[in-house]
């Protein structure tokens, strides 16, 4: 059984006129100890998915209107607020992009750590303090003992994110949701934080759901990847397959848009034309069709499902694409069309 299984999740937000569906039928799993990425551009619904899992979508602004979030077999969407509080921290912990918004500015780092330890684990003050020092040492904060007395504003961005990771790990969660945790950080600090999270997750066998827009971060961290576009998962694969055999034209587009440091410098980038659809004006067929160079009439008329296009030893590769689909009407995209071959040439 998967540690986390999201089934057909649907989340809507109130907008000026009517509502928009930010997450539209999203299903995926995360196994115990595994790192899975949700990757996509702004507005694709990746963060809304994470917030829905954590029960952070609060009416009337937004509402989870369908689906299930099964964590260790229990549907989190049906839990009472009190039961959900017990899941947060001990079951699932979340780390956000900007630690300053999730740390309390008027409490010391030490107090914030010990508070949750006392609350969730029932530790005594003294035991909590000792554990807090251990945690700060675990996230490699120098002079941990003295850092307990620091306020968040006295720490650098990287240090704050370390504190957040320490807080997330404090109750030994089974799963960490990491939402764009290095987006605000400089590249050398990002490397430190990613290495730390990778090491700690491995050591403690904690599963990670990594939410990011950065394909480079995905490549270095995740075992499996879900690519999101306009509220839906459009491709799912093992990480190596996604980067070396991307199937869905949107994924080729994403990979073709980023210059790579390790490849020879060549020609122009191959951007995707246009931009993602407004959620209030979702195309009738494939949501990517208006920007897709390979779209046919079918794509504009009828929305494709997420279907398996490649069997692989592990869990296969799925796309939401007529062109790569195995159905009778679809499947016109040949391997020659596919981005992977262009990449090989570029080497």
């Amino acid at each position, binding site marked *: 059984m998967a540690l986390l299984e999201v089934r057909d999740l649907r989340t809507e937000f109130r907008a000026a006129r009517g509502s928009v569906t930010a997450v539209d039928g999203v299903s995926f799993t995360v196994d115990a100890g595994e790192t899975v990425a949700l990757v996509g551009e702004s507005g694709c619904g990746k963060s809304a998915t994470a917030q829905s899992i954590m029960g952070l979508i609060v009416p009337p602004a937004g509402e989870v209107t369908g689906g299930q979030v099964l964590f260790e077999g229990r549907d989190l969407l049906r839990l009472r607020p009190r039961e959900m509080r017990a899941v947060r921290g001990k079951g699932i912990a979340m780390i956000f992009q900007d630690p300053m918004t999730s740390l309390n500015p008027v409490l010391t780092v030490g107090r914030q750590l010990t508070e949750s330890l006392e609350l969730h684990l029932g530790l005594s003050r003294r035991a909590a303090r000792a554990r807090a020092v251990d945690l700060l040492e675990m996230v490699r904060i120098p002079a941990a003992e003295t850092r307990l007395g620091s306020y968040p504003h006295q720490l650098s961005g*990287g240090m704050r994110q370390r504190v957040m990771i320490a807080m997330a790990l404090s109750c030994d969660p089974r799963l960490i949701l990491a939402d764009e945790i290095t987006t605000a950080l400089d590249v050398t600090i990002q*490397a430190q934080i990613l290495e730390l999270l990778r090491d700690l997750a491995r050591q403690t066998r904690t599963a990670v759901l990594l939410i990011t827009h950065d394909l480079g971060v995905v*490549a270095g961290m995740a075992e499996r990847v879900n690519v999101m576009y306009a509220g839906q998962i459009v491709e799912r694969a093992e990480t190596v397959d996604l980067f070396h055999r991307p199937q869905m034209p949107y994924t080729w587009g994403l990979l073709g848009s980023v210059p790579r440091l*390790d490849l020879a410098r060549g020609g122009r*980038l191959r951007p*995707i034309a246009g931009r993602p659809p407004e959620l209030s004006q979702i195309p009738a067929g494939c949501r990517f069709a208006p920007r897709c160079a390979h779209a046919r009439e079918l794509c504009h008329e009828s929305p494709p499902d997420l279907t398996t296009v490649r069997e692989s030893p592990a869990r296969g590769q799925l796309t939401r694409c007529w062109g790569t689909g195995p159905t009778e009407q679809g499947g016109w995209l040949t391997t020659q069309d596919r981005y992977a071959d262009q990449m090989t040439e570029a080497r």
Partner: protein
Amino acid sequence: MSEAPATASDTTDTAAPGPSLLRVRDLAVDFKVPVRGSLRAARLRAVSGVDLDIRRGEILGVVGESGCGKSTTGRAILQLLKPSQGTVAFDGTELTTLSRGRMRAMRRRMQMIFQDPFASLNPRMSIGELIEEPLLVHSDLSAAGRRAKALETMQLVGLSSRWHDRYPHEFSGGQRQRVGIARALVSNPEFVVADEPVSALDVSVQAQIVNLLEQLQEELGLTMMFIAHDLAVVRHLCDRIAVMYLGTVVEVGECEDMYTSPRHPYTQALLSAVPIPDPLVEVERKRRILTGDVPSPLNPPTGCRFRTRCWKAQDVCATQEPKLTTTGDGHQVACHFPENPGPQDHPLVAVAGDR
């Protein structure tokens, strides 16, 4: 068919160094910052002793992490911030001593593209008005002439003329950046400082703007200073690169040279920290992960500013500030113990050992 030998190195782009359009020497910029418990402000030296040459027709990339002074340098070059010391010569004219009137006339020739186009656009002006606005100062064109020029520039940056009467809030991030670029280019400048122009954009749109800048630079023969923190984008776009750390320039070199054989330890660490979108490369890669944070510019380390995070630092690094020195091949580095040129320990190439 006679082909050039495949081994011809395309990295030794031996184009004779073109004449400098811009020559910056010993530039420093100070900010006053309040000190808690004191009425006297402290002096924060954001940029210190920067020497840079930008050749006519090239794109010079300036990279570094937050607070390294790259944006401040760009603004001080354009005299949008007053330098505390140093000289900035543009096409032979010293800018730091120019009168306001002469500087305003000079501004037509040097423009800026900002990171957040929305913050730099007046929401009550239509796109057409926004693009025409610089012409009110920088040209004596009639209203009709300005309109024609604005429409021509819109076409140049890939904005349809039907957008002329629309307002910025109707535009996406990528389109707004096109407006920002059009505003910078409408007065036909020779030199443009682009300050993180693609950092706020999603990757698919970012690539569109990168391609546009590349195309415009070629078509118009622009000279450009491209300030960014994304090393992959900088490498894609730039001819030469300057790396900054804590207010100083630590290395300058030809683009490919910089990436294949970085000399300064900081440049090496920076390159090694960039994630590569390929899991097979990532897994093989040897990383050089720096410890600690960037020190406060209020109290920079003595000697070499990078020494507190440098794995090669020795006693001399604490006492003597290394000068930016030019090596035989025109590469410049400020380090007491620079790496030898050569790809042997390259943070990126070393991993591509599968072929």
